């Protein structure tokens, strides 16, 4: 083995190091590695301990070398990209780089042409859309005004969910576009699936090394810089987080759809007592679940194995039942897994449907296939040569699910409330459950649930409480608006509140009906417009109400109202289209005006969405 580190050390340093370690045995090597690591940490502490005045002075002093600053830009919808970017910034700084960490929402795009080193950490939403915070940046980059970037070196880490067809599409497009604009790729893009660390970890080790070389003058390691601009972690996020969830007690788990409907929607109340957790209206709750026991049994039976056998993978040993129940995704498949499965399908099994979904460019077919097949369906429809062990190594780790919080902490205090629709359907001749929603629906009233708070600072009530708010939340999309209204009532906000709600049936699915009625009676809720799609011949949805109430809506918007939408991605598209139409019509200024208005509103946070 040779100490080949062409980027970090000069030739002379390399030679000295090789001489030194050639005579060392394992214990001395270990000790030395620890010693050097300690030295590196000590340097980092020095950099963090710089007093403000000194920092200011240092910034001035560092100005001449400002062009070698690394900018880490993140676009995050659910917080994962942000969390990674924060870590990257801290570690870059510890490695002696000059770093600035910026939320892409706060990034002045005109600065892009003067950047020299840029890392982008960005997620892809649903069907290939950027996070709301990144829309402007994304559009700018792909627009005519995008500058030549010949002097830029960059790397992109993309986050996504491979159960969607356009996996990591946004990161890919940014990566390709930066290259097209003349920028030089320092390192190949990393595409992270729900098990983020699997890809992110090795990508970051490589990228950091490459960055140190790129940013340092040849022959020397960059000295610690004092002008780092690392946004501190939110205090609440540090105590409990995704990887260290708080075990919350379930106080209540109440079905809130009436008998007579097959929509099973539950209102959960969880205790945060003793956690010190804080949340804002608009935030989400991350929830860890187990897979449904019936599904786990089914998978074990199909594989023909006992759940009691143990298996060790990546240094962890669990029984097969534990692996399938607590550790792996069984309900969301990925294209990569389909490919793997396809190669294992037993001879003689007709896998035409599977192949059709995997065909080149078969985006819609793939989406449809992934939307209708859980692991068990694949195993049964296309029997294949899997052992429990090979299957465990091929499946993705179980990931937590996010639910919009439906309470305001100013009212709920030590509680957090969720509104969960249980996904349950029959397909391929068997009953299917959504893994997390099925788990939550069955949670007993004294059970425990591992949770954490996921900030969503792009979905916030107006800072100015005099502003009116318009909330569009059909189905469980109404959850954050229950929180919004509670907060507005409790804080005595003077602005008016207007809610659009929709469901299939008035009699059985009018979520939180008595609460809205009470709020209306007390004039806390000023308007409510309801679309019950199946209570009459023609289907009526919230977007139809938006269109119908266009004149009044436009008047509210002109008065500065903030517009919020929560629910499915498709619904949001329809609502947005209806809103644009209403603005075009009632302003009397047409589509162009409406589009401009919308862009402005989105930028200023007067149009916000929480979609899934």
């Amino acid at each position, binding site marked *: 083995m040779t100490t080949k580190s062409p980027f970090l050390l000069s030739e002379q340093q390399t030679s000295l190091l090789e001489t030194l370690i050639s005579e060392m045995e394992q214990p001395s090597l270990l000790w030395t590695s620890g010693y050097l690591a300690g030295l590196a940490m000590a340097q980092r502490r020095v950099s963090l301990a710089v007093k403000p005045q000194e920092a200011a002075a240092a910034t001035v002093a560092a100005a001449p070398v400002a062009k070698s600053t690394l900018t880490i830009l993140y676009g995050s919808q659910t917080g994962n990209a942000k969390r990674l970017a924060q870590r990257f910034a801290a570690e870059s700084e510890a490695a002696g780089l000059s770093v600035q960490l910026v939320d892409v929402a706060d990034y002045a795009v005109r600065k892009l042409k003067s950047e020299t080193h840029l890392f982008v950490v960005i997620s892809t939403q649903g069907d290939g859309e950027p996070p709301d915070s990144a829309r402007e940046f994304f559009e700018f980059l792909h627009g005519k005004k995008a500058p030549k970037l010949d002097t830029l070196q960059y790397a992109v880490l993309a986050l996504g969910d491979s159960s969607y067809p356009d996996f990591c599409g946004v990161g890919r497009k940014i990566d390709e576009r930066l290259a097209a604009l003349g920028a030089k790729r320092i390192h190949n893009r990393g595409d992270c699936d729900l098990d983020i660390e699997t890809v992110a970890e090795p990508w970051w080790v490589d990228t950091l090394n490459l960055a140190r070389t790129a940013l340092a003058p040849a022959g020397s390691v960059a000295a610690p810089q004092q002008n780092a601009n690392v946004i501190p972690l939110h205090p609440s996020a540090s105590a409990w987080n995704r990887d260290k969830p708080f075990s919350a007690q379930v106080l209540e788990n*109440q079905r*809130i*759809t009436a008998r007579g409907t097959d929509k099973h929607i539950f209102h959960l109340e969880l205790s945060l007592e003793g956690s010190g957790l804080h949340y804002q209206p608009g935030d989400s709750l991350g929830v860890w679940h187990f897979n449904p026991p019936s599904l786990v049994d089914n998978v074990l039976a199909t594989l023909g194995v006992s759940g009691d056998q143990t298996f060790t993978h990546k240094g962890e040993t669990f029984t097969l039942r534990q692996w399938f129940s607590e550790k792996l995704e069984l309900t969301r498949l990925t294209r990569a897994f389909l490919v793997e499965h396809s190669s294992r399908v037993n001879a003689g099994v007709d896998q035409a449907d599977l192949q059709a979904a995997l065909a080149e460019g078969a985006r819609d077919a793939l989406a449809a296939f992934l939307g209708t097949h859980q692991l068990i369906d694949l195993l049964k429809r296309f029997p294949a040569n899997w052992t429990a062990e090979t299957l465990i190594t091929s499946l993705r780790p179980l990931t937590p699910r996010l639910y919009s919080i439906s309470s305001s902490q100013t009212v709920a205090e030590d509680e957090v409330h969720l509104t969960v629709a249980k996904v349950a359907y029959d397909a391929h001749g068997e009953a299917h459950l959504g893994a997390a929603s099925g788990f939550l629906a069955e949670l007993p009233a004294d059970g425990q649930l591992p949770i954490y708070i996921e900030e969503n600072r792009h979905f916030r009530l107006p800072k100015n409480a005099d502003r009116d708010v318009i909330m569009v939340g059909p189905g469980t999309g109404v959850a954050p608006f229950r929180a919004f209204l509670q907060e507005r009532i409790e804080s005595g906000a003077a602005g008016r509140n207007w809610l659009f709600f929709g469901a299939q049936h*008035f009699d059985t699915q009018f979520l*939180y*009906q*008595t609460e809205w*009625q009470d709020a209306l009676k007390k004039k806390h809720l000023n308007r409510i417009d309801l679309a019950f799609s199946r209570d*009459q011949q023609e289907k009526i949805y919230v977007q139809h109400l938006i269109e119908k109430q266009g004149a009044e809506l436009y008047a509210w918007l002109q008065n500065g109202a903030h517009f919020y939408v929560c629910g499915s991605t498709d619904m949001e598209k329809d609502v947005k289209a209806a809103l644009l139409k209403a603005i075009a019509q009632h302003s009397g200024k047409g589509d162009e005006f409406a589009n401009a208005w919308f862009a402005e509103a989105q930028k200023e946070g007067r149009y916000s969405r929480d979609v899934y």
Partner: protein
Amino acid sequence: MPQEWNWKDIVEMTGKPSSVEVLKKDSDYLRGTLAECLQDPVTGSISHMDTRVIKFHGCYEQDDRDLREERRKQKLEPAFQYFIRTRLPGGVVTPSQWLALDEIAQKFGRGTLKLTTRQTFQIHGIVKRKLKPAMQAMNAVMIDSIAACGDVNRNVLCATNPHLSEVHRTVWQQALDVSAYMKPKTRAYYEVWLDEKKVSTTENQEPFYGDTYLPRKFKIAISVPPVNDVDAFANDIGLIAIIENGKLEGYTVAVGGGMGKTYGDAKTYPRAATVIGFIRPDEVNHVCETIAGIQRDFGDRSERSQARMKYTIDHMGLDRFKEELNSRLGHALEAPRAFKFDHNGDRYGWVEGEDGLWHLTLYIEAGRVVDDVLLGLREIAGVHKGEFRVTTNQNVIIARVAPEDRAQIDALVAKHGLDGYRGASGIRKNSMACVALPTCGLAMAESERYLPDLLLKLEAILDRNGILDAPITLRISGCPNGCSRPFLAEIALTGRAIGRYSLNLGGNFTGERLNTVYLENATEPEILAALEPMIANYAKNRLEDEKFGDFLYRTGVLSAA
């Protein structure tokens, strides 16, 4: 005659008007805020005032009481729903109207029909947004629900005696006439349900009723002896047809009948109507309106439990009441003519009318047209050329069947098992129950859901004593308000609490004598334990043709007050 009421007059007459009187007066002749409330999408309910007003349009707001607590926890309001009660004088509908009502129940209601003790239909389980289309669908087949409930003249009952084809025609026409004559004149119904444009008018919208209508509900029934199926004596006005030589001479008039009472309030009581005179057919409309006019002017508007005409008469004294009537009519009523009743039940099976057409009376348990009964009658309505008559005992008559069409009807009756009356016990054929739980807001105990159980247990007792055939009237009511006319039955249970009833005994088989309370607040085992020895004794010691109620008096189980 008073036109627009002013409060001063009313207060002088009966004291501080009740809240319902205020609501009626404020309702703008039964419009209330119904038009707006029907549009309000946030609730399946209507305003407090409108829950009163809508009764005058033939609707009651109810909610499924079984679901209240469950829905409260689900953060949902109660499962509000309505029933529409049709105005159907004499209970006669054509086959196409039957089919239309069936279809309305399927499309807008819970899919079943209820035959009421006032000879009409109730369609239950209609949610607010479907009320208007249901009303419009009814009107499309010439059926309305005006004044089917509320403080007005309700659905007019008429004997169904199928033997007397000609007389039935005549008295049915009489029922239609008086119903139309005493119908409220406000256009509110047409505006709210049929989108008639409101025309502003200075004309008096209710020349007879005035803006506060009657103090309480008002009921008229026309009976044709020897059958008192309509229970003439349970009505505010009972008209008993006097037929001489096959020709209708006129009616003996009885006034002041009424069933309701309130437990623990001695001022309230059921009362059988008192015979006061005889009138000719062409006097019926005017005399009925004049009697109702006295009730309008003298009835208690302060306390609703004292507002029925039975109390008005007792408060005034019968003589004073008759004086007032004679003075308003300008002449004295003729002396009442004699009549004789045999029974107040229905005669099951086929009978031939005088005109050679045939009539088939079917037993419908508790008037519930559900499942096979619903399907069977639907199929019969599809081929039947005559008419249907709803009886006041919640049964149905397939009326006016040509002899050659009987076989076809019989086949359908057999196919759907509608011929249960054949083997039915005497008590089953003479049983009746109101709706009660879960939808009736007044119910204290089960009624129509309980009748089948109770019948089986009583039949077992009767069977053990070898008198399963004995015709005995049995009526259950979920509260003491008396929709199933319990206080005229030989055996009656009136609900006190879940699983507890007052046992009332000793009505007579013709519906002319009130029963009396035998047990208070009794459970089913207590009731059965009390009845078993009486029934055993009755089986052994009854005289020929002696009825159960009469037997209880003769043997001293009950004694005349």
